[in-house]
């Protein structure tokens, strides 16, 4: 085994050297980009650029390395040379994989390690760093291992359709996507593990049978079929999208929305395909332009709209949905750069951490109670709610809103509240041309409006929406001192759920408080008509996948697949895939167990399953039986109908057979 590993290392050392050079150059490029801009506030070890480069490099290098390791023995006689030695095929497989993954770790890890060492040395990178920030890069490095196995599978398989060699990459791509968009880190790791297990088992199975499907152990067959099915899924999906491009697009249905003008009046705008935007008031009367007497023009209407500031506050104060990668990359958020200092909000300490631009070192942290030269201060922290809202001059704890002076490295309290009514968000509202400056603070029970100095202008209680988040919109009306507060459910909740909740509008005057309040009925959700590409792509989607989807989210229709699309998917499986599979199973005399298994598989996985089924199966030829004259499979010793054997070779009378003497 050691000899094999050493031979593999030696054989692929040139590719490894090339990869090392390329990877190092990529990281050197990152280094140069970072060093060229001293006020750059990104952490080079945890920014989108390094994620991109790591993801692409690991994927491509992994695939090429895996492919090359198998391609080295492409010619059948050299493959025979490799296999024909006193080693099991599993041991040969393991030897190759150990060498390959070792090279992969070296080529991917060594430059990264160097980069990390550079970044961690004090004086180089002026940004916070914690170990958790390396998790995204680590995840992409691990995902590259899937591409490695996919590359091996690509060259190993004896595929009839040459393009189907690429299908193994499907699992790697799907896992990459799910890891990028996934909600949590450890499930993503589990997903990587599962994907790697599937692809590695498929490769192992290929080694057992020289790339054929038939001679493999059953685990290898299952893994190969699964991997191909995922690949076919992607291909089918893209084909469906492509095909639907050639057909006329369906018409989207109309949309209605609310709008508020500067005098505080609410209008509805109805739009639709082929229709121009229609503006009506709440009673339904169309708004007429005073000068012309005709329905108002859209641009003129837009000029009348009131300015609004929006704040979305999640139900439990946590930031809205984001992927785990986004969260890991946002452990330290760039806050603001002053003349000589870069300030970051580091959620680990709940404080603003400053880095000197010139020396690239940490100079200390700013908390609610003021500046400290270390990271902890007196343990005083801002709340995470401080990060909601765009203003970078305000921050808050649970009970106070503070104005930040980063140049003087000091804080001053603008507003306080009690502990039972904690602050959820604050936002600075500035209307330069009017010279207005307010601060809006949203606590658990109240909405406060303050002046820039912190003097209260008004406050009002509110009902939080029954959704995952509440959206607050503050409209600045004319004359100054008039406001409208619009509270509506937010978040990516099911559109139908949202439609059942009213929005609440309050008109507030500066010295008089709430003048009027109104519950606006929710606008009807336009009836959803699936577009052609959605129909086609759902036809080719596995029903099992679509049925299991409500467990996740991130769909335009909310959390539920429209019934019509679900039915389309099942129809594809039942009407097309299952009959084809059953027919082929009968024609080629699968065993009962095999037919049942494939039937379940085709039913669950639909068109991609059928494509995978057709890709892997090696159909034996059929010949006429010498006895009953009906067609029978050549790979069965006995005829399935009459039980007869095959005819021995025809005798021509020129045969020469004689006993061979033992020598």
């Amino acid at each position, binding site marked *: 085994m050691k000899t094999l590993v050493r031979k593999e290392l030696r054989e692929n050392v040139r590719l490894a050297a090339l990869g090392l050079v390329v990877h190092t150059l990529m990281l050197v490029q990152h280094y140069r980009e970072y060093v060229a801009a001293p006020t750059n506030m990104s952490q080079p070890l945890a920014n989108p650029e390094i994620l991109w480069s790591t993801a692409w490099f690991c994927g491509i290098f992994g695939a090429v390395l895996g492919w090359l390791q198998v391609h080295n023995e492409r010619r059948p006689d050299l493959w025979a040379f490799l296999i024909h030695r006193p080693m099991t095929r599993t041991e040969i497989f393991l030897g190759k994989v150990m060498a390959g993954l070792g090279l992969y770790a070296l080529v991917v890890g060594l430059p990264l390690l160097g980069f990390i060492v550079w970044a961690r040395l004090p004086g180089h990178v002026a940004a916070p760093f914690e170990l958790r920030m390396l998790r995204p890069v680590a995840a992409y490095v691990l995902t590259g291992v899937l591409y490695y196995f996919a590359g091996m599978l690509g060259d190993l398989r004896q595929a009839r359709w040459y393009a189907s060699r690429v299908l193994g990459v499907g699992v790697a791509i799907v896992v990459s996507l799910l890891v990028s968009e996934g909600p949590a880190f450890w499930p993503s790791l589990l997903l990587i593990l599962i994907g790697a297990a599937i692809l590695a088992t498929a490769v192992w199975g290929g080694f057992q049978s020289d790339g054929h499907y038939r001679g493999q152990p059953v685990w290898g067959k299952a893994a190969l079929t699964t991997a191909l099915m995922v690949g076919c899924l992607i291909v089918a999906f893209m084909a469906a999208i492509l095909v639907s491009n050639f057909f006329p697009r369906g018409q989207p249905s109309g949309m209605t929305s609310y709008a508020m003008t500067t005098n505080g009046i609410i209008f509805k705008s109805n739009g639709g395909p082929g229709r121009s935007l229609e503006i009506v008031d709440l009673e339904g009367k169309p708004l007429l332009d005073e000068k012309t007497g005709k329905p108002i023009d859209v641009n003129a209407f837009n000029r009348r709209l009131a300015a609004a500031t929006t704040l979305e506050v999640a139900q439990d104060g946590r930031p809205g949905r984001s992927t785990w990668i986004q969260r890991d990359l946002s452990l330290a958020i760039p806050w603001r750069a002053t003349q000589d200092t870069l300030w970051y909000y580091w959620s680990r300490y709940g404080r603003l951490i400053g880095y000197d631009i010139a020396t690239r070192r940490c100079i200390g942290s700013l908390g609610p109670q003021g500046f400290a030269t270390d990271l902890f201060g007196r343990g005083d922290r801002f709340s995470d709610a401080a990060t909601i809202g765009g203003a970078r001059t305000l921050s808050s704890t649970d009970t106070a809103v503070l104005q930040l002076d980063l140049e003087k490295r000091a804080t001053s309290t603008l507003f306080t509240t009690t502990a039972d009514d904690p602050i959820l968000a604050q936002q600075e509202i500035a209307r330069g041309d009017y010279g207005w400056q307010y601060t809006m603070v949203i606590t658990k029970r109240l909405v406060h409006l303050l002046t820039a100095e912190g003097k209260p202008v008004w406050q009002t209680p509110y009902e939080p929406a029954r959704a995952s988040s509440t959206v607050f919109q503050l409209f600045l009306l004319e004359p100054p001192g008039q406001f409208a507060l619009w509270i509506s459910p937010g978040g990516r909740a099911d559109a139908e759920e949202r439609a059942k909740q009213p929005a609440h509008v309050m008109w507030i005057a500066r010295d008089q408080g709430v003048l009027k309040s109104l519950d606006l009925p929710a606008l009807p959700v336009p009836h959803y008509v699936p577009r052609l590409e959605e129909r086609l792509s759902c036809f080719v989607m596995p029903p099992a996948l679509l049925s299991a989807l409500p467990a996740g989210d991130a769909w335009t229709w909310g959390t539920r697949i429209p019934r019509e699309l679900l039915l389309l998917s099942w129809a594809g499986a039942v009407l097309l895939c299952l009959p084809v599979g059953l027919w082929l199973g009968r024609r080629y005399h699968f065993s009962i167990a095999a037919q049942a298994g494939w039937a379940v598989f085709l039913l669950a996985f639909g068109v991609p399953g059928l494509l995978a089924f057709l890709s892997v199966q090696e159909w034996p030829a059929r010949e006429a039986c010498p006895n009953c004259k009906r067609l029978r499979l050549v790979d069965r010793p006995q005829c399935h109908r009459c039980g007869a054997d095959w005819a021995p070779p025809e005798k021509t009378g020129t045969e020469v057979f004689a006993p*061979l003497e033992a020598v």
Partner: protein
Amino acid sequence: MNEQSVIRTQGLTRYFGAQPAVYELSLEVPRGGVFALLGRNGSGKTTTIRMLLGLLEPTRGGASILGYDIRSLPPEARARIGYLTEEHQLYGWMSVRECGEFQSRFFPTWNDKIFRGVIGHFNLRPTALVKSLSRGERAGLCLALTLAPEPELLILDDPAVGLDPVARRALVESMIYLTRRSDRTIFFSTHQLPDVERVADHIAVLDRSVLRACCPLETFRNSVRQVRLRFPGTPRALPKIPGLLQAVRSEGELRVTCVHYNGATEAALRGLAPVQIEETPISLEDAFISYLGDRGEKSFILSETEAQP
């Protein structure tokens, strides 16, 4: 595992698509001696050998090699079998010595003297890279790698293809050297009939995927006979003769090549009333070509119309 047969096949069949490459092959290779597998190109020799070594799955039928089922050859079986492929392919980046070192670590019975001996016989420099070797030199290196572990069973797939006469002679000498041990068996496929004549004890002939002969070499030679009949004029059409391989008619003469020439055949030939019947000796090569060539009658008589200028 000291059976008398080192290879035993039973109805071994392999289809590629709808065509059988090997059809219902049943033969037994006895232990010891040299067994040659003959046949035209594309008759199924390499396919058979691949199946025997577990590198190709049979469509149906089975076989055993050294007592092990070919569908699941364990490592200890592979340690006892030497396999020389047709293309003599090796890793181009290795040197001759590195190839030897590489192989020696896998086979416990590696005999380095044999390796160095064969290398020396083919005049290979130990530091030469495989990709710089000629076809014949690569063959010599592959032979050295195959012989050094002193395998019980040596399987060679067309080992002489592309070799110059000196290399071919060295190959045959190596095979004879191997027969020193009576428990060693050589199984090889080839087109080189002179080599077969020299070293083979037994032969098997594959004709278009079907086994047509399996016997000692001398039995085959004795079975294929050529008879010359002389006629006063143009000979008549030939009656149906069992075992007929070829019949060539020319001016005043009929040459018949057939298998199992016996009294019935002679009687049928005498029925044509020839002036003379005489058996002409035939070389192995001619016998083989007649055996596998097109069967039936050929006529080289110029008709009178054609002879007109």
